[in-house]
């Protein structure tokens, strides 16, 4: 009985805050757009009893999903989002791994400070940080001013409102999510393993490749998913830093919802996005599970 209550608490939590909202979104995605508040039909009217419920279900259909396949915009946005998320995950890994490695190699008394520095940006609002990137990357921004001053370029680089700016924004924003799990994996690595590898004939570089990388694999995988999953649905960064040709599904969803007020289509977009995300989320969970088994 006690065990049942223990399980029930998180279970009810998930039900109320995840499953119920999802059911609502799913229902809206099967509805039709309407000029009303809320802007869709049918609405469930329980006063009419059984007949009302039957009529309600009869009106639900997959029209919106069919629509998503007919308009090229949507599947292009999905593919482009996947592409941007994938590339920025790889970029974040390339930037984040050396930082995590450096932190793990740092003397003990420095580590807490370095860890704090990684988390420090979270103390400022995410929106403000993205706005400040607009200030840095714009044509008259700090970066161009600096490069013009050093004489490296003669005309300002166009970075803001391109995909490059989106990559910079995503890498910057999600870098801590990449660094922290890799750092955690590297930090608990036994230093004598590298000495053993060298003793058995490895150079420093091969020892890194054959020992350090495999032992931080779980951290790398965790970090990549932690960046990839939110980056796929990202909408603030592409809408603020990206240009008109930056196509990301998060931005499309936002526009459907707020500009077009087409809640049913927006909900359908969201449901498909969720289905796409289930795959990496399951893989992520499996990686975590495997790691826990290894640690035992």
């Amino acid at each position, binding site marked *: 009985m006690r065990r049942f209550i223990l399980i029930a608490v998180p279970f009810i939590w998930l039900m109320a805050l995840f499953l119920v909202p999802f059911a609502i979104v799913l229902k809206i995605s099967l509805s039709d757009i309407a000029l009303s508040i809320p802007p869709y039909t049918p609405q469930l009217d329980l006063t009419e009893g059984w007949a009302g419920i039957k009529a309600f279900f009869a009106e639900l259909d997959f029209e919106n999903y069919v629509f998503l396949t007919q308009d090229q915009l949507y599947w292009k946005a999905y593919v482009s989002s996947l592409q941007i998320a994938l590339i920025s995950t790889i970029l974040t890994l390339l930037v984040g791994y050396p930082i995590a490695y450096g932190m793990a190699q740092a003397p003990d008394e420095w580590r807490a400070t370095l860890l704090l520095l990684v988390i420090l940006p979270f103390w400022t609002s995410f929106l403000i940080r993205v706005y400040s990137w607009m200030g840095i990357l714009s044509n008259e921004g700090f970066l161009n001013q600096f490069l013009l001053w050093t004489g490296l370029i003669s005309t300002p680089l166009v970075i803001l409102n391109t995909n490059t700016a989106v990559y910079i924004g995503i890498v910057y924003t999600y870098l801590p999510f990449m660094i922290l799990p890799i750092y955690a994996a590297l930090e608990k690595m*036994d230093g*004598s*393993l590298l*000495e*053993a*590898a*060298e*003793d*058995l*004939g*490895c*150079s420093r570089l*091969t020892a890194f490749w*054959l*020992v350090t990388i*495999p*032992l931080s*694999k779980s951290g790398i995988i965790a970090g990549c998913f932690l960046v990839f999953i939110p980056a796929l649905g990202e909408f603030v960064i592409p809408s603020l830093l990206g240009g008109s040709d930056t196509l990301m599904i998060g931005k499309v969803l936002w526009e459907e919802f707020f500009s077009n007020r087409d809640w049913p289509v927006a909900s359908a977009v969201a449901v498909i996005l969720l289905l796409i995300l289930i795959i990496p989320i399951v893989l992520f969970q499996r990686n975590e599970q495997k790691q826990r088994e*290894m640690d*035992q």
Partner: protein
Amino acid sequence: MAQTVFAPWDDPQAKPLIQFKNVTKRFGDFTAIENLTQDIYEREFFALLGPSGCGKTTLMRMLAGFENTSEGQILIAGQDMANVPPNKRAVNMMFQSYALFPHLSIWENIAFGLKREGKPKDQIAARVDEMLRLTRLEKFAMRKPHQISGGQRQRVALARSLAKAPKLLLLDEPLGALDKKLRQDTQFELMDIQEKTGTTFVIVTHDQEEAMTVSSRVAVMDEGQIIQVATPAQIYEAPNSVYVADFIGDVNIIDGVATPEGDAYHIAWAEGQAPFTAKTATRFSEGQRCYLAIRPEKVGISADRPADMANAVQGQIIDIAYLGNISTYHVKLANGQMMKAQTANTRRLSRRSFTWEDRVWLSWTDTAAVVLEN
């Protein structure tokens, strides 16, 4: 048939495998090794013994190539090892933590070093299988290190470090993590493997029993210096200092003043007490301070004064440590000095001759004790 004794260190013709020449190692202000010179010969099982912080691990890490010398030279097989990185040395090390690669199977762990040499696959496989047989690990080849016991991990570490057939194998507290029974079994296993492979072993340990059991020679270290190097028997029977006598096994140390008397010395140790007599090869001058070191098992205990013993002294039993096969009596002498005497329990415990508070005579011959200068 007379067996030739293995003692290359007594043979002036023998060429040492390892030579430390005036080696000094400093870490900042701290001197870990001070002006150390020592030869180690091929096929030796050489033990570095000392308390923690005495520099024995530093010495070993310098042999492996993880530390450079601050001054002096280390030669292996006549070649100067300065600037030779660990991966270019014919030296392998068995780490205290074993340092097995957790992401690789036992088989792959043992093959790790062989693969780096770029040997053909079938040769690697043959060598790994040979190592698995040697360490009796065939059944566990496909397991991961976290799926086997501590004793098995220790054998994997040994197999991995032996796989490349190094000239020199370094063992850093190899048996530290094992319980006593397993440790004793493994000690004999180690000696057996050393004999079979003919590799030179250098072992670091703080366990004097382990050092005595396995090694051909023991080096007792203290504060970055080797105090004495000798065979286990010599170290035990003829320590060169109070430090070594005290570090190896149990010992009674009696502080006194020497007076030459014929071919022996009289050692005055307390006022109003008859001096002790001891024979020694070391020369002492009249009135020189000296230390008498006597092993408890060489001290006899009896109710009456034995007539034929060179030394006899009366005291009172304060404590008895019963260890099953032997008992150690802690006896207080007239001047308050405590002395330990050990006897084998050849009779049943209920028929023990002495008990607490008994007044007894302790006695030993004139050759039983070692007279030391410092």
